[in-house]
Each structure stands twice: as C-alpha cells, then as structure tokens.
C-alpha cells in the first residue's frame, strides 16, 4: 500500500512539473508582447525598450523559469502585472466564489441525478425513462451562457428573486451569498446533470438486477425501501467518483457562467490574465488549478483503494 501511495505521489509531482514547463514555455511563444500590450497604440520604440527592461523581460528564459518555479515551491507565485497584487492573494480572493459554485452545482446535479436516474432505472424502457433521457439530452446540449441569460432575464431582472450582479462577500452574510450564487449554480448543474443521470441509471439497473435485490424481495421488504436502502447504496459508488471528477473540472471551467453573472471567480481571473498577457497571473492560475485537479484525483484514488479493497493496486 505504502509503495502504491509513494508511486502515485511521484506521478503527481511529475505531472505538476511537466505542466509547469509546458505552461511557462508555451506561453512565452504566444504572440503578444506584454510591454506592447501595456502601452497600446501610444507605444514608441523608446518607451517599449524601457518598459521591457523594467519588467525583466530581457532576462534569459531558463533563468525566468527557474526563478518562477523556485518561488512557487515556497507558495509565492509572483506578482500580477495587471492587478498589481500577489498572485496567491488574487487566487485566494477568488476561491470562495469558485469553490462554492462548484460544490453547490455538483451537489444540486448529484441530488437531481440520484432522483431521476433511479426513477429512470426503476421504470426503464417505459415512457418515463424515455422522457427523462430525452430531457437529459436537451439540457446537456443547451449552451450555459444562453440558459444563464434566460435565468438572468426572467428570474433576476424581471422578478427580482435573484440579484443580477453576483455580489459575493462576507459582509452580505451566508443567505445573501447563497442567493447570489444559487442561480448560476443551478444553471451549471443543469449542464452537469445529464452525464450523472446516465451514470446513476446504468449503475442502478445493474444493482436492481443483482441477487441481493431478489433476496430482499424474498425477505418481504417493500420495493421502494429496498431500492433506497440497498440498491442505491451499491449503485452510488461510480457516480460519486464521477461527481468528484466533475468538481475538479468545474474548478477551471466556470469562466462562462462567472462572466454572465458578474461573479469574481477563478474562471474570470483566468480569462483576464490571458487577455492582458499577465504571464505571472496566468502561469500561477494554471499551476494552481493543475495542483488542485491532480491532488483531487490523487486523494480520490487513495480513498478508493481504501474503501474497496478489491481494486488491484500496483502491478
């Protein structure tokens, strides 16, 4: 077991290293000189040269990389040129929004998937199942920005049930904050729920077919309670793994929803860093998201082997 953990850990470190290399060097070859971008149409060759020098852009690339990665190991991701603050501080400011959004939307979609996936499995091959599968297809193919605009127009601006601008802050209190992100989380959940429903449905079908379900019947247990107590418990494993992976993916994939709902999350920070060629910020966010995703899958793997000893490790 220890060997497996060490092996997985080394893999994780290697992935991080490769990602950091790719991020750093791939970004350097992108067109778009940050100095030119800062000065815009007012740039003169003299002012450009001066600015490049003051930004340290004239140092050799390998040295720039080593400095950056060395600092990153000490949790110092450098300073954002555009915003002027520490990259770690900026990421820290965005985390509450993005984590809450991701948790809430994965949570909502998980609950919905559990309900509708089970119904679809129990009534499989009937019109109920077909309807659920049809709606699932429809909702997962609707673009989230469009759904977001619909939500903003009818549920926020017209009815005032939700705020139009997602002002997420501690001063507002927990309820206000949940109100600020509930609508975007719902809309993200709608996009997420399709794949989860399908997963729950097929695991449930397998569980319902298994021998212990027959034995619950023999023992005289009522069907609904047998489904909830036994079938669902065994069927939940795969969807849970999938949900944790979706959570990791949402971490870097909330940009569209954050833009529509004016939420200051990680996704929009990433977008701005690309637009503004704020290299330190961009590299920092990519490294951070990679670290989170890699860590989540590392922890999930370890937990998984702990829970289910039948998973073969090593070899």
């Amino acid at each position, binding site marked *: 077991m220890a060997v497996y953990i060490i092996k997985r850990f080394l893999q994780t470190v290697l992935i991080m290293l490769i990602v950091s290399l790719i991020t750093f060097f791939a970004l350097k070859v992108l067109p*778009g000189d940050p100095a*030119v971008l800062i000065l815009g149409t007012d740039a*003169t*060759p003299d002012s450009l040269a*001066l600015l490049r020098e003051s930004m340290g852009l004239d140092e050799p690339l390998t040295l720039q990389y080593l400095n950056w990665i060395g600092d990153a190991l000490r949790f110092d991701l450098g300073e954002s040129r555009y915003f002027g603050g520490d990259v770690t501080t900026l990421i820290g400011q965005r985390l509450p929004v993005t984590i809450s959004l991701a948790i809430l939307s994965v949570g909502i979609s998980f609950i919905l998937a559990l309900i509708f996936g089970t119904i679809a499995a129990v009534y499989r091959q009937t019109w109920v199942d077909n309807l659920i599968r049809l709606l699932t297809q429809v909702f997962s193919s609707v673009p989230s920005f469009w759904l977001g605009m619909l939500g903003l127009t009818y549920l926020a601006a017209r009815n005032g049930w939700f705020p139009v601008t997602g002002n997420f802050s501690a*001063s507002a209190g927990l309820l206000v904050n949940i109100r600020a992100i509930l609508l975007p989380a719902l809309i993200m959940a709608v996009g997420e729920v399709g794949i989860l429903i399908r997963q729950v449905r097929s695991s449930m079908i397998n569980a319902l077919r298994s021998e212990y379900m027959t034995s619950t019947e023999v023992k005289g247990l009522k069907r609904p309670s047998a489904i909830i107590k036994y079938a669902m418990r065994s069927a*939940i494993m795969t969807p849970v793994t999938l949900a944790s992976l979706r959570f990791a993916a949402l971490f870097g994939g909330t940009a569209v929803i954050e833009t529509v709902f004016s939420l200051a999350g990680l996704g929009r920070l990433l977008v701005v860093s690309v637009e503004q060629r704020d290299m330190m910020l961009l590299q920092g966010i990519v490294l951070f998201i990679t670290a989170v995703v890699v860590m989540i899958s590392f922890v999930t793997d370890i937990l998984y082997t702990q829970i289910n000893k039948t998973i073969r490790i090593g070899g």
Partner: protein
Amino acid sequence: MKEFLGGRIMKKHLTLLLMAASLFVGFISTSFSVSAQEEDTQQLNFAISVDPDGLDPQRTVAASSFQVTNNIYDTLVKVTPAGEYVPGLVESWEVSEDGLTITFKLVEGISFHNEAPFNAEAVVASFDRLKDDASPRGLDYANITSYEAISEYEVEFVTEELDVELVSSFAYPWAAIVEASVGDDLKNNPVGTGAYKLQEWVPQQRLVLEAYDGAMVTAQIPVVNFVTIPDASARVLAFQSGEVDIMGISGDQVSLFEAAEGFKIVESQSNALQLMAMNLENEYLSNPLVRHAMNLAVNKDVLIESIWYGYGNKIGSHYPPILKGHVDHSEAYAYNLEEAKALLAEAGYPDGFTITMDLPSDYQAYVDAGQVIASDLAQIGITVETNIVEWAYWLEEVYTGRNYDLTVVGHTGRLDPFVLLARYDSESGENYFNYSNERVDEILRSVKQVQDEQERLDLYAEIQAILAEEVPALYIQSPVSLMIMDESLEGFEVYPLDIYEIKDVHYVN
C-alpha cells in the same frame, strides 16, 4: 455485504468533505472586509465592463483606469467641458516671455488622503515619478528639462524647446499629482488629493470610493460603487433592475430602453477617431489611385448607421470635429461606385485584386465595420480576406510590426492637435501607415515653435487637407459616446478628455 459497507463509508466521507468545504468557504469569506449597502441617494452604482489596471495614473495608459483615477487625484490644470484650461490644484500660472518657463502658484492648505501636505515639494516628487523610466508617459515630458520648488507653494517648469501647448500637458490625467512617497503601492492603495478616496477594491467585482473631507471641492454623493459587469446584456439587465444607476452604453443598446422609464441618455461627441488604416508599403496601396478608389467605394453613411446606429460624425481626415481648427473634409471622396471603378481601372487593376484585412477581436464594432467595408470593396472587384486577430497580436504584428495590408481601429483623442497628428511624421515610431509626405514632415517639425495660434491652426488645417487628399486611411467617424443614467441624477458633464468628474454628480428629487 462488503459493497454495502463501502457505500456507507463513502457516504460518510462525502458528508465530511462537504462539511469541511463549507467551513473553509465560510472561513475565507468572513476574512473579507465589510461594506454595507447605503441608502439610494447616498451611493452611486456605476457599472463598468473592465477593471482599471491599477489606480496609479503614472503607471497606466488605459482609458478605463483614468476614468476612475481622475476622481482620486487632481491635476494642476483642469479642462472644462468646453475645452478651456482652468486652474486645478493651482491658484494661477504664468508663462515667461520666451514661452519656455511656466510657474504655478499652488493652492494652500490642502493635504493628501494620508494627511501628507500638498506643497511644491510634493509636486516636484510627483513629476520625478512621472518622468521615471517605469512610467509609460515619461517620454511625453522629455521637453521639460528642469523643474523646482521656488517657494513652499510655487513650482517652476523649464522646457528646452518652445511648446505653445505646454499648459495642456498638465491637464492630462496621467499628470495628476500623486503622493510619491507611497511609491508603487499606489497601484492598489492610491493616495491623491481628489474628492474621493479608495475604500475597498475587490478586483473584477467592485471598487468603492468614499468622499474625502479635505478635498478642494467636496463630492456630493458620499459613496461611489463601481461594479464590474463584463457581459453587455447583463449590464442592461442590472440597469433595468435598478442595481446600477449609471453606465456607458453602445448605440445598438439604446432601443432596449425605449419601453422603459425613469432614465435619461447623455450623448457626448468624443474626440476619438475611427478609421481603416492602409499600409502604404503594400504594392497596391502605395498607389494613390487605388486609395482614392477604395475611399469612393465605401458608403460611410451606411457604415456609420449600420455599425454605430448613427451615433457618430463622419470625418474625412485625421481630425475630430470638436477639436479646435477642424476643417470638414467628410465629403472629400463621397460614395461613387462608377468613379471608383474607373479609378481602379486607371490604376491598372480593372479586375481588382486580393488583399488582407486584420481586425482586432476585442473590438466587435471594428470587426463588424471591417466586414461591411470588405463587402463594399467587393463591389469594385477588390477581394478582402479578413483575419480576426487578438488584440495582443494586433498590437505586435499590425501596429508595431506594420505587418498588414488593411485594418480597422480607433485612436483616442488629444487636447493638442500636434500630438494627434505627430504619427504622420515619416520618422515617427507610431506611423503604422508608413506614410511619408515632405510637407507634412516639415510642418510637424516646426509647428511647435509657432507662437501665433491662428498661424498654427492654419498649418494643422494644411495637414488635414493633405491627409484628406492622399488618404493613407479610410477616415470613418468620430464616435458619439452614450451614458445612460437614472433621471434624478444631475451634474454629469462630458469632457474633451476621456474622464468622468463624479464629484459634481448629485441626485435631485
């Protein structure tokens, strides 16, 4: 049985994970500072689409930043909505007989937001910082060779060469007086003498200013809350729902408010310019006949109507109509397809040719305008291949690298016609047209020494006429910018510089 157990453990873990995560979120969010929502007339909610890139006016060139910093800092000289220069942080100023020295008498008894005194020393320190290497505008002030405090409240600036528009250079928002001892911290913690001081800034979310008691003129609305709303439709919804009191809108959005009540739209003629630039190094574009033909082939009225919904003034040269000394050349090459075809044939291209056009994706209006122009040019046989490029690429390849054929872009306006026209000097680093005309060079290199204003304006008129005749670009329009606001708001003025004076804005009931 094993599987049942697994399910239970997993569930327990999931619950724990969710609990831990919500605790974490709660913990982080409580560490934020508190800002309570004020009563309506006590707070102005101002929607912006992008954040300022820092609040240090000496370390940015972004108009979106100056619109905010102008309320935090003051300049020595201010410009009125009519374009007159009036004292800002000074009682008066005096220009020496030879025009090389300007002496400012500063206002007394003012202090910065951090209580540091405002005096001649502070002005000198601020200009040291403005002329520093790290300052993007530093080189604009190279002509000022020395400046010193001659008493506690008097500062003298000496220029090397005569610059008759010298006073204007003290009115730009980047010439604002900053508390220089704060240094580069100004970017996030601005310290000025302005009517507002920074209360809180959560980048990409909100930037809150509060009135400063010690300012020269006290602000009328105590709190200004700039809310960042990146999506244009979301901004409209936020305004309609009352979450936003004032914001800029584009011409196409005006119709969205037709059914609504309780607002007003303020139109302002900006001094910016929008044009389709041509690279004169291109073999076709180097031929004046081709450029004339292309100008004749584009229907500017239709273009302005379809892209900017008519909110713009047609131009025919590189000069905005509201700038002093403007000469109207907008009809110089009035739309005429037959003549355009004839000229193209005369140039030796009766069947037209193929050319590329790079359009900056960040500016949807320029992309759309480029497509309309391309379809107009197709009518005389010129095939335009449009490439939509990122702004960073545009700046490097098109603007700085001059590696393009055609492009559509805008230029920000200036108070001084010289700064506006200087890019047409054949030696200028900003001459991305690769334009060269001996007479234009001659005028640009001597006009700053001409003392007589009328004589100077005549020279600028001559350049306008030459550009209108030689058309190194298709000059399209000078845009009208639109602000929508709550109808109870008064005092919002439009300035020839791209700035807002929020201190004068107030509610009337």
